[in-house]
């Protein structure tokens, strides 16, 4: 618990620092104050990609090792990844409304592919929720988690493959297209959100470990069942 509180505190500080950088960077000439969303939208999506990558890793490791901790890692990372994807989608829509005049552009493959990725991982969680047996749940989730990660590069490279309203990659091998202050703000916030991701993951894994440890004994063991009080039947 202390470790979680420490990480949460660190995450709060990191977010505060990131916020400061995002709010003090000079606004974009065309987009105005909305350009500050650069401090959250791309970092949130990056962290989501990393989260789903961790899920794929956990899934593959479970298929190889069959150890419960890999399944817990994969599932926790999906839960956190979905939160960051939702943040990315929401901030993206706010930004889109401001800059494109519409929150949703059907012809934007990155937007569409991100939405599809969001629903696929929602389906992953729904699948897990529908299965009681832990081994069957882990196996089926691992298979889905391994396949679903294919979407991550598709989402990322969609802006390169298709001409869209969506801004292209801000950071490219030949350098960045944005002012240094904005770039720094974005990178600082990416670091901050990674700390948030780690804090949420540690908290979620702690809960998952506690749940696993507290899981009721097999009904057949029946240790919690005591002999009936036959002489007290009339006293109820």
């Amino acid at each position: 618990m202390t470790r979680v509180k420490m990480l949460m505190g660190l995450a709060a500080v990191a977010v505060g620092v990131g916020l400061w950088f995002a709010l003090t960077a000079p606004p974009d000439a065309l987009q105005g104050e909305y350009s500050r969303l650069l401090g959250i939208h791309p970092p949130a999506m990056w962290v989501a990609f990393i989260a789903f990558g961790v899920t794929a890793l956990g899934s593959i490791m479970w298929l190889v090792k069959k150890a419960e901790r890999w399944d817990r890692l994969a599932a926790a990372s999906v839960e956190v990844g979905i939160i960051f994807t939702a943040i990315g989608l929401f901030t993206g829509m706010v930004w889109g409304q401001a800059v494109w005049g519409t929150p949703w552009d059907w012809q934007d493959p990155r937007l569409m592919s991100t939405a599809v990725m969001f629903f696929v991982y929602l389906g992953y969680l729904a699948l897990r929720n529908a299965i009681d047996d832990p081994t069957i749940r882990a196996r089926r989730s691992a298979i889905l988690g391994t396949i679903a990660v294919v979407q991550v590069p598709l989402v990322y490279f969609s802006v390169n493959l298709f001409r869209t309203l969506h801004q292209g990659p801000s950071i490219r091998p030949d350098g960045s297209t944005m002012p240094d202050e904005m770039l720094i703000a974005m990178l600082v916030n990416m670091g901050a959100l990674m700390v948030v991701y780690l804090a949420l993951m540690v908290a979620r894994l702690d809960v998952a470990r506690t749940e696993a440890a507290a899981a009721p004994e097999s009904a057949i063991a029946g240790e919690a069942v005591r002999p009936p009080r036959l002489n007290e039947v009339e006293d109820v």
Partner: protein
Amino acid sequence: MSFWNQAFEIARVDLTLERRIGNTLRITLPFAVVALMVFPLALDLRLALVSTIGIGVFWALGILFGMQVALRQSATDTRERRDLQALLGVDPAARFVGRLLSGGVLMSGFLLIVLLAMVVLFDPDVPDGGWPVLIMSTFFVAIGLTELGTLAGEVTTGLSNRTVLASLIVAPLALPLIIGASQSVGALSRDTGILPWILLLIASDLALAVAGVALAQPLEEATR
């Protein structure tokens, strides 16, 4: 236990079960939103057309997926549970009202979220003054659909193909709800009165409520 206490107890347990099973939130709702996304793609992204049909697509998908909410697992009783309820003196009409209360809450939440998703995805053409009418119609449709689903669920209880069969029963009977809802918003664009359509929705809901309460006992006996 009084009629209303029975109804509230059944509604309370129903909502608790739905919170734990979570099919509406985890499966039906995402599925409905994905279905919303299919339409523009299927229409070759003719966005002007998409804006025009947005509200209609909402009603169609709302009814079709709403039926799954009405027929959810948490609202299903085994024969043994129904026998137990009969021996506890549970009034079948109270069970209907209880299911209506819990189903109404779930259905209203479900339809409002799907409506929000439709607004974001379709950017629909809503006439002036249309938003309050749209939201009001959504609530009336939620109530009517819950009533229909609960009745259909009772009629098909214990049958192996219950969900499909109940959906088949509900779909045509939901037409007055679709007509009332779509025409109430359409009337605003045509600058004609919305009152007849709102009254159609209210009358449908009332008629279904009366039918549900009146038929509860005969249905209970017919399905033993």
